[in-house]
């Protein structure tokens, strides 16, 4: 067998590919793109929720929200480390984010306008993320799969907390109910879009499935998500903003309305309500932190040379 065949054979037998193993260059590049995009999403995703940390309406909620946003930072960290095993540095990846070469999940280009958005993001956005990510715990690249196991545990916790926040609002005052429905209305379609283009418009799916860095197609995962949310929203006594949402007895799935792909592609390509704001915030943090990173590096260097002198 040639290296390519050995590689595919391992994948077919569900043996994990590890950093030192031979792998096709395209597999490496696809993984770098996918993992770094995922890492960037975690980091940019801290911003819309971070927006409410200072306004969280109770100390308990404040602590939960801070812990959640901090978890996302941790996810970013695991994922950057997993990507680094493929031969790219964290600084290079961050550079690609800032230059616009690397993408992040478009969902974070929507604004968080009310407190209820903290619930809707947990329920729908973390919910959709879990749907995407659980299969990734079994993806063929070892470091990525192991990172995803840790990530998924925390994401399902986030989703439950988000739902609980909305449930609380849904049983509260008129204004709280209104906040709850309004947030669901705004976050529903962007969440449905999180699964990416329809399968017929997703050219890389077949190769990624063969390499087992993707286990289900976008539309399969999206359908699963819609089916679950259509039931859960009833517990909230709220509705999803889709007049075409209807149980289909024959298919044993929910039918749902047309996705606005024009909006999706516009947000992806930079025209979302907060694209500029999010990227500017990331760049600002990075640039303003430059002197701190330089100081830490300079100090570490000084210490090392002092220790060398002592040792000599």
């Amino acid at each position: 067998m040639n290296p390519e065949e050995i590689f595919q054979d391992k994948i077919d037998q569900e043996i994990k590919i590890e950093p030192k193993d031979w792998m096709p260059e395209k597999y490496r590049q696809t993984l770098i793109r996918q993992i770094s995009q995922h890492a960037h999403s975690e980091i940019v995703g801290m911003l819309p929720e971070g927006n409410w940390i200072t306004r969280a309406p109770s100390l308990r909620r404040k602590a939960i929200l801070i812990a959640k946003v901090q978890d996302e930072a941790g996810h970013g960290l695991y994922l950057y480390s997993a990507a680094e095993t493929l031969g790219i540095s964290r600084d290079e990846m961050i550079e690609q984010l800032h230059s616009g070469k690397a993408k992040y999940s478009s969902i974070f280009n929507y604004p968080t306008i009310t407190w209820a958005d903290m619930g809707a993001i947990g329920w729908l956005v973390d919910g959709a993320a879990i749907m995407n990510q659980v299969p990734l715990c079994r993806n063929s690249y070892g470091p990525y799969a192991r990172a995803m196991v840790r990530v998924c545990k925390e994401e399902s916790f986030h989703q439950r907390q988000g739902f609980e926040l909305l449930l609380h609002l849904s049983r509260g005052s008129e204004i709280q109910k209104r906040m709850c429905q309004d947030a669901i209305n705004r976050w529903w379609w962007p969440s449905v879009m999180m699964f990416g283009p329809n399968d017929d418009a997703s050219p890389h799916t077949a190769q990624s499935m063969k390499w087992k860095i993707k286990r289900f197609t976008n539309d399969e995962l999206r359908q699963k998500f819609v089916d679950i949310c259509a039931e859960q929203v009833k517990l909230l006594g709220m509705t999803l903003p889709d007049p075409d949402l209807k149980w289909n007895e024959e298919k044993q799935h929910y039918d749902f309305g047309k996705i606005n792909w024009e909006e999706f592609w516009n947000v992806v390509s930079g025209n979302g309500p907060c694209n500029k704001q999010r990227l500017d915030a990331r760049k600002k943090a990075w640039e303003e932190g430059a002197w701190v990173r330089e100081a830490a590096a300079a100090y570490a260097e000084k210490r090392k040379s002092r220790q060398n002198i002592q040792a000599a």
Partner: protein
Amino acid sequence: MKNELIDFTLYLADNALIIGHRNSEWCGHGPVLEQDIAITNISLDLIGQARNFYQYAAQLINEENTEAKATEDTLAYLRDGWDFKNSLLTEHPNGDWAQTITRQFFFSVYQYYLYQQLQNCSNEQIAAIAIKALKEVTYHVKWSSEWMIRLGDGTEESNSRLKKAIDNLWMFTGELFDLSAYESVIYSAWNIDNDKIKNEWESKVKGILEEATLEIPVNATWHQSGGKTGTHSEHLGFLLAEMQSLQRAYPGNEW
């Protein structure tokens, strides 16, 4: 004594909440991911401590007045600026990383030596909270000390930024050892030695600044005070307006 105990407990709670809140403003904006996580962790620890103190204060207040219905949230969200007793240091804005680090360092060292004594005090609840919190505060002191040294002995820029931060914040450190009326009552009842806290604070701060190749500001003879008795800087009003906005906009709702 009961009123002084309530005030002192609120003082401990307000200190922890306000500086914890300030630190949480960094979340998502830190200079590097690991430190974003670290400062957020410290923020979480401090808010956790604040909740413990507020819960105890609420219990005391409700015992005193059966109609009071105080909770941790009424205390954090429904009091006005003049009710807050936190020291001025804790409400000072984040500024750059050097200023945040310096604020944390000055405060954590104070908290550390104060809690050292509180852990043995005759009030069981306060002692229990202090014991639990000391593990966290020990780490805060270590983390902020390491950053003081790193910035002081790092680059020219970091050294001058740190120097500036120390100069800016130094005049707010004296208040920590200026006993308010309620502290005086509690300290003498519990045998808390303020001079000891002050001396330990000074020698720790001096030692770390030396390692950081810096010095205590020389001409600093005057210090600001007022926070402990509710006369705050202009900064606190904005912090509270933001923090309390939902509770104030929708009174009576539960979140």
